[in-house]
């Protein structure tokens, strides 16, 4: 079983088992349309969890992604209904996400504060600002040029899925093929050592949180385009889904160890579980318990294999 450990195949094996079981239990599971749905439904969490992987690799955490998603998409949507150019509105949304991330990053690095506390605070702050901005009302009647981005396909593949795929590949390249990536791993290993090794620790930390915020904003744009409306409650609790995907994918919460490929598999496991439970019409009262059980089994599987 050394090769399982070496290549960190635990999450993948868990995913494959789940996939096979669902294919046997439901005749509709293994169809192109259904798998496309799973991919589409996973995109928002996938985007959030790429950013979350970066943050967790530095031994940080970002609890504010769900609120960042809501704030950036509400502002972008409001601009759109005010007849601002759709592309410009999207860019503003992404910039808002980046600024939200920058605030987190600055407080964590230069403020020398614990990421958990900082992002717990900004989670409330950003959610509150969203509520003030939207007054609790959904923003709808968005231009079709925008909603097409959420519902359209290229060669049968939904556009949001393509966007998420690009972000995963970009994340993988940054982490595995660049100096920046190696430094991010080093940050999670030991901040002091990283600092002594001449890494501009604080500056890197800020940019990691900016990336996380930008990805949260992209997730928000996808969600808003798919729904055709932006809501102040959007993204509530999504931070936990993202963290779950990252951990399921084998990334250590202590930092310094893990990969975006693992995270992708983690996100897909969550997407497949939700889909399967609906397809099988599992009693609503049981769904949370079943989801929790599958997550625990997947984590145990990974631990056993990688010990």
């Amino acid at each position, binding site marked *: 079983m050394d090769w399982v450990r070496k290549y960190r195949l635990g999450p993948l094996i868990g995913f494959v088992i789940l996939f096979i079981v669902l294919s046997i239990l439901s005749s*509709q599971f293994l169809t192109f349309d259904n798998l496309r749905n799973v991919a589409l*439904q996973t995109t928002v969490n996938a985007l959030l969890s790429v950013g979350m992987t970066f943050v967790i690799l530095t031994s940080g955490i970002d609890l504010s992604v769900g609120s960042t998603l809501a704030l950036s998409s509400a502002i972008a949507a409001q601009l759109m209904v005010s007849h601002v150019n759709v592309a410009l509105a999207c860019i503003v949304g992404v910039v808002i996400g980046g600024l939200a991330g920058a605030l987190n990053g600055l407080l964590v690095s230069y403020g020398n504060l614990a990421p958990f506390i900082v992002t717990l605070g900004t989670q409330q702050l950003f959610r509150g600002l969203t509520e003030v901005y939207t007054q*609790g009302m959904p923003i709808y009647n968005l231009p079709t040029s925008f909603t097409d981005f959420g519902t359209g396909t290229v060669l049968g593949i939904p556009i949001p899925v393509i966007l998420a795929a690009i972000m995963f590949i970009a994340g993988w390249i940054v982490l595995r093929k660049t100096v920046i990536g190696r430094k991010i791993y080093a940050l999670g290993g030991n901040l002091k050592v990283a600092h002594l090794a001449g890494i501009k620790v604080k500056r890197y930390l800020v940019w990691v949180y900016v990336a996380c915020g930008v990805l949260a904003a992209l997730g928000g744009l996808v969600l808003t385009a798919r*729904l*055709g*409306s932006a809501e102040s409650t959007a993204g509530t609790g999504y931070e936990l889904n993202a963290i779950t995907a990252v951990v399921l994918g084998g990334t250590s919460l202590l930092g310094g160890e893990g990969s975006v490929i693992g995270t992708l598999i983690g996100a897909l496991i969550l997407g497949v579980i939700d889909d399967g439970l609906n397809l099988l019409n599992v009693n*609503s*009262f049981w769904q949370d318990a079943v989801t929790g059980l599958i997550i625990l089994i997947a984590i145990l599987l990974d631990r056993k294999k990688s010990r």
Partner: protein
Amino acid sequence: MMKMWKLAAMSTVAIGMLATSFTTAYAGTAKTASVSGKTIGFADSTLTNPYFVALQKGVDSEAKKYGLKVINDNANNDDSTQLNQVEDLIQQHVSVILLNPVDSQSLSSAVKAANSAGIPVITLDRSVNSGKVATFIASDSVLAGKMAAQELIKALHGKGTVVELQGILGESAEIDREQGFDKEIATAPGIKVVAKQSANFDRATAMNVMQNILQAHPTINGVFAQNDEMALGALEAIQQAGKKNIKVVGIDGEQEAINDVNKGTMYADIAQQPTEEGVLGIDYAVKLLKGQKIPSKVNSPLHLVTKGSKFKGF
């Protein structure tokens, strides 16, 4: 006349509220003299849901008519926050507390605290399990579920397969709407509920759940969503799947859903009237202040919205 006003106000409210009595006296009329200037505390569960935003609007606008001052609290759906807020309202000696409880059990103690301080409590939309409530104003959720079932039976001419999207399991609105719907839909032997899944009263969740259900049951004829947010999410999934002729019925009366009913993309909506509910809250608070007797339960009206109705949502 103005002097009498101020005297009356001073004797009934704290000195700090004097300033308000000047402004309210200006708006007041002789008819409302006895309550004008008094303060009502309104503890709302959340302002992230349009329904409860509309509820607050109803309270505010009606209070203005009577020259009442309102202290608005928003508990962000957190029961301990709301408990603290109600305690603060008691400390401020408001004349009546309007409470839209986050939780029926945990807010019972807040109501008891108000009871022992001698401040009457009116519950809006949801009530509490214990403690003395002057009156409970809400629309009948069991009836709303029943009306939704009747609309679906009518839409499908008593034949077909339907899906039920449930709200947050265990919430009274979810339990009651489901009970009303299930009982009524069972009276149509030709209609079968093929899937019953929870989407937590949430639009994004409902879109995904509906997409998945459409994979398992591509030929369904109708959807009952226990609230409008889920109905709107389901509609999005149905449209994106290119399905036509699936009749969707929701509950709540959100403007966006009403628009869809009028466009014909949604079949019908059982509208509650939260603004009206807030207005009733103030009306009954005023009755209490005037010493009148009020019933222990007041039904806020439900409104069946079908295509072409002139009804305005919230």
